[in-house]
């Protein structure tokens, strides 16, 4: 099996190894739907997500306001649509940052070993010594409440996970014959890392990144909920749940319930997509 895969050109091998599955399709569809909502929000709703309409506040869901209106008279459906922009943006930026910092760190540690390994991976252990939600909240609190700082905090918390995966995968890839061959041919470190090792470890990083999106959204929404993330009137879902919090106790459930359902949908979508990608890309799970 392995020798056969090595014989065919890479693109074909990749195509042959990729197998579609239902998790992939359903998860992908949910995520695409959310992206669609985020991009076309202004076309999908006649209302403004920020503008106040005090006379029209606290309306229960109806055919006019599908998700009702909040305490400022804003259409909740509209805010959920626009909210997709923020939550997707947070997820993509934070995951890109975390993977962008964590992956090279893990690669360096796994490739050079020795002191590089000890120093980098012990620092990563320290990041993992804190329950991640707590570290994210404390960082966000210390940095000051804002959307940018929330993204930064969530990204920092995520770094160690990517470093660990890249570390293990790099060590495994370093012993592969083609890497040794490239090394024997005199390829410098940076070329070995970028052209021989990076492509080999990309699959687990991509899988982790996809699964990490869901986790990141939950984390960022948590920050928004306690006022450390996006600030009002930004229609970020976590912040919206917080704004509607006192209404729920009075029976006006819709202001908090719908943004929460949006979070559940998007996170579930990313989790399905990640599971599906893992099954499609990782030959061991088949």
């Amino acid at each position, binding site marked *: 099996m392995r020798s056969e895969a090595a014989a065919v050109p890479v693109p074909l091998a990749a195509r042959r190894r990729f197998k579609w599955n239902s998790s992939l399709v359903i998860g992908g569809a949910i995520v695409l739907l959310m992206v669609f909502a985020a991009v076309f929000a202004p076309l999908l709703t006649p209302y403004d997500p920020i503008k106040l309409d005090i006379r029209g506040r606290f309306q229960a869901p109806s055919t006019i306001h599908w998700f009702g209106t909040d305490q400022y008279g804003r259409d909740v459906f509209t805010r959920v649509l626009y909210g997709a922009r923020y939550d997707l943006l947070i997820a993509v930026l934070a995951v890109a940052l975390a993977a962008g910092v964590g992956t090279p760190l893990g690669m360096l540690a796994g490739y050079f070993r020795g002191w590089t390994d000890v120093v980098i991976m012990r620092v990563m252990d320290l990041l993992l*010594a*804190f*329950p991640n939600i707590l570290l994210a909240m404390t960082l966000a609190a210390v940095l000051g409440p804002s959307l940018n700082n929330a993204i930064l905090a969530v990204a920092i918390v995520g770094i160690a996970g990517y470093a660990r995966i890249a570390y293990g995968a790099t060590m495994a890839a370093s012993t592969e014959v083609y890497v040794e061959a490239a090394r024997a041919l005199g390829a410098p470190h940076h070329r070995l890392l970028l052209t021989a090792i990076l492509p080999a470890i990309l699959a687990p990083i991509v899988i982790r990144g996809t699964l990490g999106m869901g986790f990141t959204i939950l984390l960022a929404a948590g920050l928004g*909920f306690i006022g450390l993330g996006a600030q009002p009137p930004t229609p970020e879902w976590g912040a919206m749940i917080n704004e509607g919090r006192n209404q729920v*106790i009075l*029976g006006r*459930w819709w202001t908090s319930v719908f943004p929460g359902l949006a979070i559940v949908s998007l996170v579930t979508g990313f989790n399905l997509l990640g599971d599906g990608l893992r099954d499609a890309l990782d030959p061991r799970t088949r």
Partner: protein
Amino acid sequence: MIPYVLRRLVAVAVLVVGISLVTFALVRMVPGDPVALYYGGMPVSADIEQALRRQWGLDQPLPVQYLRYLGGVLRGNLGVSLATGRPILDDLVRRFPATVELTLAGVLLALVVGLPLGVLAALHRNGPVDHLLRIGSLVSLGMPNFWLGLVLIFVFGYQLGWFPPAEGRLAAGVPIPGRVTGFYTVDSLLAGNLVAFRSALAQMMAPAITVAMGLVAVVIRMLRAGMLEELGKDYVRTGRSKGLTPRAVYYKHALRNAIIPTITVVSIQIGYLLGGNVLVEAVFAWPGVGLYYINAINALDYNAVIGATLLIAVVFALINLGVDILNAFIDPRIHYA
């Protein structure tokens, strides 16, 4: 065994020093000057400022400041809360039982619900029950716990009236039982105070369900996978062929082996719950470490925020240590070179 335990102890000690390094860095990251912060931005004379800086050691180089900080932490000095005016460690210790009680209740509930469901899913692999449970687990993993808490408050509190309002550990007017363990459910029973016991239990229902919800899916997934692995092993076939009933093979043999990794994972989750439950405590006004932490964040009481972070991280490390050592005792197959 003993060398292994010793080595783990040393590793945890190093980790705690590392944790203190991180929290010290966090203290230094706090925006604004500590003296200005202390006086709430009021103008301070240069003499007083100088004296305060010397008293707090801010005139010393950073490594000296860190060593002082570490020394304080090791002696249990996390500083004084600006909001409550009391030593932070005292505040935290007083509130810790509330957090532990809620966490344990949630874990217990998750096990009581999750273990049978995990077995069920494994025995009916790929059947309708298994699929249903898989979808349920998937959705529950996507739920923010603070949102679930609000939904429970609305549905079971507001609509159905099953749960009392979320106002802490006891209903208004119910006196707090004398402190023995700090767990109100236990203390009220010890005092023979059934009214307090019932109230404590009722107040805990909704937050405990919220905590359990995030864990049930983990329990089901782990046990299902563990059971399936065990059911494929030779001893199960041997048991069946020598005439044991399926029930005996599944529950007396396979389940016992499958349950160990599940319990390990759940124990480690307890550490994460101590952090994650911060938001649940905030939603239910549950007066534990988490609510203290959230209040400190809102009050810009940075010392208290970082102190709580440090305490939870240390407890987290100790739980992981305990789990490792327990596992080494339980499973003789594990050999630690």
